[in-house]
C-alpha cells in the first residue's frame, strides 16, 4: 500500500518533499525485494512449523507465498541488472 501511495500521481509543491518520497520508495522497494530478508522469513516460518506453532497446511500456504515473492525479487533484480 505504501508503494501505491508513493506512485500515485501527485503534484508536489516542494522539491524537498519529493526527494523524501523518492527515498522512501527506494527503501520500500529494497525491503520487498531483499532476497536475504525473504530467506530469513522462510527460516522463521520453518522454525514455527518445527515448534508446532503452525500446521503443515498453514506452513505450505505461507511457503507458497514466499516462493512467489522470491521469484519476483529475482526477476526484479535481473531487470535492474543487479548481480
Amino acid at each position: 500500500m505504501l508503494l501505491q501511495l508513493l506512485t500515485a500521481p501527485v503534484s508536489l509543491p516542494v522539491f524537498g518533499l519529493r526527494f523524501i518520497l523518492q527515498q522512501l520508495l527506494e527503501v520500500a522497494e529494497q525491503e520487498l525485494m531483499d532476497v536475504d530478508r525473504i530467506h530469513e522469513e522462510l527460516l522463521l516460518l520453518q522454525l514455527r512449523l518445527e515448534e508446532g506453532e503452525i500446521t503443515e497446511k498453514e506452513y505450505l500456504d505461507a511457503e507458497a507465498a514466499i516462493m512467489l515473492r522470491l521469484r519476483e525479487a529475482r526477476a526484479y533484480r535481473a531487470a535492474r541488472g543487479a548481480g
Partner: protein
Amino acid sequence: MAVEEQILGYGAEPPERAPAGGKYVYCIIECAEPRAFGRMGIGGRNDEVYTIEHGGLAAVVSDTPVVVYDPTRENALTHEHVIDTVLQEFTVIPMSFGAIFRTHDDVVEFLKDTADALRDVLQKMTGKIELGLKVNWDPETVLKQVEDETEEIRRLKEEILTNRLTSTYFARMQLGRMVERAMSEAADTYVREIYDQLRGCAIASRHNKPIGDKMILNAAFLVERERAAAFDEQVQEIARKYQGQLRFQSTGPWPPYNFVNIHLKLERAGAGG
C-alpha cells in the same frame, strides 16, 4: 560452499519450455567407477541419481530441465536426502541448493577445472562430520531475571513506575537500552560457557544467525567421527547444567556445509557451455 554466480540465467522458465539435459548437482565425491544411488532426484519425476566422473572425482547428479528450483521444504529435503544417502559410503562435498549445469560436458569441465581444490577439501573432510547445535531460552524469563537482578535496571524501573522522574519518555528509552544490553550480555555469557564445554571435542565451529527471538545460539561444529560420541556427551552435560533455563537441540551428522569454502565463479552464459 558458495556458488557465486548461479549457473542459470535469472527468471525461471516453466519446466515444459525449458531445455532438458541439465544436470542438478548434489555433491562431489571421490569415485572412479560409475555409480547409481536410486530414483530420488529433485523435481518429482523420480529421476535416477547417478555419477558423472572425471579423473577420479565424481559429481552426483540427476537429470533436470534447466530451471530455477524454488527452495521449498520439499525440494530442500530431496536435496538433503540424496546427500545423506551418498554420505553413508563416501566423504562428500555438498553443493548448495539449486546448482545446475546445462550439460554433461559442463560437469566434466567443472571437475577438470577444480580438481585440485576439490581433492584438497575432500582430503581435509575425510573422517569428519558436522554437528549442529541450536540453543533456545525463554526471553520472558530472562527479561524478568535481568530486571530483578540488575541493580540499576530495578532502580530505574522503580523510579519510572512511581513517577519520580520528570521525563518518563527518556527514562523509558534508557530502560529499554539497558535491558537490551543486559540480555545481550546474558546471552553472550551462556554462549561462552557452552563453547568452553564443547571446545575440546570439536575441530572448528561456525556461528550462524539465530532464528527468531528465542534462539541464542545457532552453530555448526566440525567434529571427527570418533569424537562424535564424546561431543554428544558434552552437549548432554551442559544441557543438564542449564536445564530449565536453556533448551538444546542437536542436529546431524551433516556433510560439512558450513566448513567448505569453495567459491565457484562461473560464466553467466552458463558454466562454460
